């Protein structure tokens, strides 16, 4: 099932870990906050996406199945 990344903008502290772990889908903006691709996460990047979610120091990143 295709999954999408999203961020809780209140919880996010702009640590930048996600952009480092998953540069294919996440870029840091000029203030360090993640710009997330709206595309479904390709299967080949799923493992890295899950790692970005679990490694987020603020627990602000989510990977959810599309409805």
């Amino acid at each position, binding site marked *: 099932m295709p999954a999408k990344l999203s961020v809780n*903008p*209140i919880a996010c*502290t702009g640590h930048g870990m996600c952009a480092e772990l998953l540069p294919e889908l996440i870029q840091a*903006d000029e*203030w360090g*906050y993640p710009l997330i691709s709206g595309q479904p996460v390709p299967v080949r990047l799923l493992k890295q996406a899950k790692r970005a979610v679990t490694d987020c120091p603020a627990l602000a990143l989510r990977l959810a199945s599309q409805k």
Partner: protein
Amino acid sequence: MSPVTAAATQAYQAPAGGGGFPRLLPPAGQGTDLRAHLGLHGPVPYRGSAGALIADVRAAGLTGRGGAAFPVHRKLEAVAAARAGRAIVVGNAAEGEPASHKDEALLFLAPHLVLDGLQLAAEAVGAGRAVLYVRGDLRARARLNDYLPERDAHGLDRLPVEIVWSPNRFLAGEESALASRVSGGPAVPRFTPPRVFERGVDGRPTLVQNVETLAHLALIARYGPGWFRSLGTPDEPGTMLCTLRQASGSVDVAEAAIGTPLATLLDLSAAGAVLVGGYHGAWLPAAHAAGLTLSNAQLRPAGAFTGAGVLAALPAGRCGLIESARVARYLALESAGQCGPCRNGLPSIAGAMAELAGPDPHPRVLDDLSRWAGLVEGRGACHHPDGTVRFLRSALGVFGPEIGLHQQGRCSAATGRPFLPVPAGPSTEADWS
């Protein structure tokens, strides 16, 4: 408070008693007390069961008058699905928009319609708690405390009404901020979902309706959906309260049928531009606004919307960039500061707008504004960055010729006096309760 008049823009044959035009504001010379209210509209028309009113509200096509124009029956249905007695109903009069006075006027002139509507909405969703959320510095504050015991003495209210005072902040009336404040926390937005109608005040399903919406609901319960639809347009039925800021500087709250020409509501002869929908709304050139009506059907294609009915005619001889820069600074200060893009981007945008409003703005400033607008849009927990960007982009579009003047070191302002109202005191980060 602003002087209040009713703009009778459309004749309407009233049924016996209440139901004439204006609908919400009492007729001239009519008292605003409970006796006058009961004489005009009679007692609260309870239906005797939860849900009974919802079909009428759906048939009436009532939409929220707080700004979003969301269909009221859908919120009612969502909250009514909760177990009886669990839900909470909140009447929202936070009115954090500095250019709006219509909720204040309504609470001053027709408080009992609002309180009737609160009870009827509570019955319709089977709520166990009713709250009125009111900006703490409104003049109606002292009087509101007197109404509730008076209504009790007449046996009008089935649920006791709690009053919760809201801080005078732009975002205090945002639904999730309201839910936080009524739950005892600060009036700042939270990340949704869950939506407030699912988990709101104290984690309970919460119906939040603007107080004007509740007053319309109280009239629909009495006079029916057919009556409601006899004014307005088929797609956007009914009337709405507007705060009209004329180019002359006078400010009125008026009730108008949706579909009324903007040129009927505002004297546009001395105006250069019109701000429609408040500080999250959009500027339109006066000549463009003159051909439009007060309706989302006509305003949306122009990039604007009716919102909470704020209409301001900027006089010719004022600089729209200076005005917009002041508003942008205010909006940046009103960020709750919770989301990085809003906390960083809005002050950057406000600074660039101030640069643009001055002489010889830096050539890079338009590119900066465009980039920052794209960076904050859609990246907040609430719509504050989105509304700010809408306002900003419309300013850059409508005041394009003025930008050209500023680039030549000139400005069309004949006076430096501010036109749009922005609260004087600087807001402080701690002041959210």
